[in-house]
């Protein structure tokens, strides 16, 4: 199976380790991974901040770059939700503005083929035990767009439970937003910081060493708050845990 990795612009720039982990994991599971160099950004930040028209060229580019692949995998719940939920909506809005079907038709091919990583593993590859080894106490934060946008449900937890050595502890108030919300973190920084601090305190109460999630943007916010509050916990993307093995443990 030939699969394209859509890494997202944030991961490409700031979290290349997550990208390498996805490549390592999927390769181990027998998937032929490609990274189309023309990729940049899905347009989520533009769209959600109210710049839909600026997001359109990015969405069109996304479709150009990825449309020929059998599947598109992304280690980001929010970018996955952008493509699956919001691309069709962008098409509809363009139509409602009297611009015809062009945008909708351009974006349609990539919509059903785009999968968030854990969704791809469980639904497409049909695996829950990916042969990982990670001897740490971990708590899982389901990010909002993964949870409510894509409906990832129990998939990430099932994957984590199957990891050898990993002790999964439940996060109190797990389904509450961490307070990132893209530009929300800057525009309403007081409220955002208060939400982040509550999330981190809940995480701390579990006694876990690691807080794991399937979206580095949320982890950046949570991790930044952890560092500031000096908790000693660390944020880790789920892909990195799933890529870790006994032979090559995550460093």
């Amino acid at each position, binding site marked *: 199976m030939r699969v394209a990795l859509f*890494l997202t*612009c944030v*991961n*490409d*720039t*700031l*979290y*290349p*380790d997550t*990208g*390498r982990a996805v*490549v*390592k994991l999927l*390769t181990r599971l027998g998937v032929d991974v*490609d*990274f189309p*160099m023309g*990729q*940049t*950004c899905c*347009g989520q930040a*533009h769209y*959600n*901040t*109210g*710049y*839909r028209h*600026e997001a359109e*060229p990015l969405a069109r*580019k996304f479709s150009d770059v990825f449309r020929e692949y059998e599947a598109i995998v992304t280690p980001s719940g929010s970018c996955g939700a952008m493509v699956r939920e919001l691309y069709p*909506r962008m098409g509809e809005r363009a139509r409602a503005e009297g611009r015809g079907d062009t945008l909708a038709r351009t974006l349609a091919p990539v919509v059903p083929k785009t999968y968030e990583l854990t969704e791809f593993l469980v639904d497409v590859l049909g695996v829950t035990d990916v042969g990982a080894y990670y001897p740490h106490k971990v708590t899982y934060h389901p990010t*909002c767009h993964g949870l*409510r*946008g894509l409906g990832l449900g129990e998939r990430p937890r099932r994957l984590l439970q199957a990891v050898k050595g990993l002790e999964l502890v439940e996060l109190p108030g797990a*389904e*509450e*937003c961490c*307070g*990132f*919300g*893209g*530009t*929300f973190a*800057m525009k*309403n*920084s*007081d*409220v955002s*910081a*208060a*939400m*982040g601090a509550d999330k981190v305190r809940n995480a701390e109460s579990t006694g876990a060493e690691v807080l794991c999630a399937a979206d580095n943007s949320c982890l*950046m*916010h949570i*991790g*930044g*708050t952890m*560092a*500031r509050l000096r908790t000693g916990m660390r944020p880790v993307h789920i892909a990195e845990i799933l890529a870790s093995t006994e032979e090559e443990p995550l*460093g």
Partner: protein
Amino acid sequence: MSGTFVGMPAFPKAAHEAVHNTTLRGNLRHATHTIRGKRAKAVTEVSDWAELREAGKRIKDHTLRHLDRYLVQLEESVTAAGGTVHWAADADEANRIVTYLVKATGESEVVKVKSMATQEIGLNEALEAEGIHAYETDLAELIVQLGKDRPSHILVPAIHRNRGEIRDIFAREMSEWGRPAPEGLTDTPAELAEAARLHLREKFLRAKVGVSGANFMVAETGTLVVVESEGNGRMCLTLPETLISVVGIEKIVPTWQDLEVFLQTLPRSSTAERMNPYTSTWTGTTDEDGPSTFHLVLIDNGRTDTLADEVGRQALRCIRCSACLNVCPVYERAGGHAYGSVYPGPIGAILSPQLRGTASEIDASLPYASSLCGACYEVCPVAIDIPEVLVHLRERVAQGGPATEKGNKVVLKPAKGHAAERAAMRAARWALSHPGALRTGQRLASRTRRLHPRTLPGPGKAWSASRDLPAVPAEPFRDWWQRTNGGRTNGGKQEGTK
């Protein structure tokens, strides 16, 4: 604090104080988490909740699509039942009508059952200016009114107050308005409720005019419906000689059968009850039973403008259950007052900038008062996609565009203060449309990474004031991919960038 919301500062500023007020945050957190848990349980008891939600959405959408027809039908039914219908285009007109109607009775006092519509138009202040005292009779509204405060929650307007604060307000203020609080009043709920009951009973028995809102209006029979928990509503609806109901035009449902859906979803969503304790319905006037004069004031006040917006109109489906407030993490920290409107929380963030327009500072900031987490959409019993409308309104604020104002199609200019953001978004879009430019930027960041501060200047300062920034890696992913051919060869350079 005044009873109105004019001249509110933008949301972030208004929220700042609340976020740092630990008592307030404690009160809010406790109240919202309790009710949120109970609601979740009450909803799972109903096996066809998803169908009820869909049915509620459809009934409302159908009604809104044919609103003109149903409003005419309603007017006919109300008139046939002995009531009089008045139409008010905006708040001023509605206030003028109600003031005129009260004056015509010769009275200078009215009792009120909680009505968001009258709060929306500032009726109490308008009446006061004409020498007419309006007494709120819901326990929470009474607390707010006696405390010279503003409501901060749709269903629990005094949610921001704890028992001790309420006791103090009663002891201090009740005597000013009527029967004083009993001597030695404590803060036990039973004693507080009894004090309120004695104080209010005098008012009910004296008042000749009642003012109400309505949760629903049934077009086929001209019947109005109020659901409540304290019984004060029923007193206000039956004891006075004249009843004036002030209702938003969107509260209509076509038939009695439609109520079947909402009388299940509303109480479970709002108070987590299977059924609300009091459901009162009134149709025109009836000889020797209830008020002998009935007026219905139908208010538009921005509703038809909202209806003209194909994305935003779904906000008019709202049945004011407040479930979205109780799950909203932003509401929980910012408190209801920060929204600068009688409609706080997620629904307020999309309704107020539509009813009032986005011209004021507060209204332009409301669409950003959300992290778009989607919890509000998930609980909404009429499936209003609040995040979708928020983003739509952000577009209106940041970019301008078509809208309807007082029935006229207009093209709005972007709100002030967004020029720099717009330029940055355009620049970012340009860079992101050119992978080469993105790459150059990434490489520059990597090369200068030792120089990067962990806190930011300018607009990013707010971010880094409470969070550390991530370190920039030595090599962006795409360079690694190219150098190692996707990890198939080890390009020589050292691995590991953390």
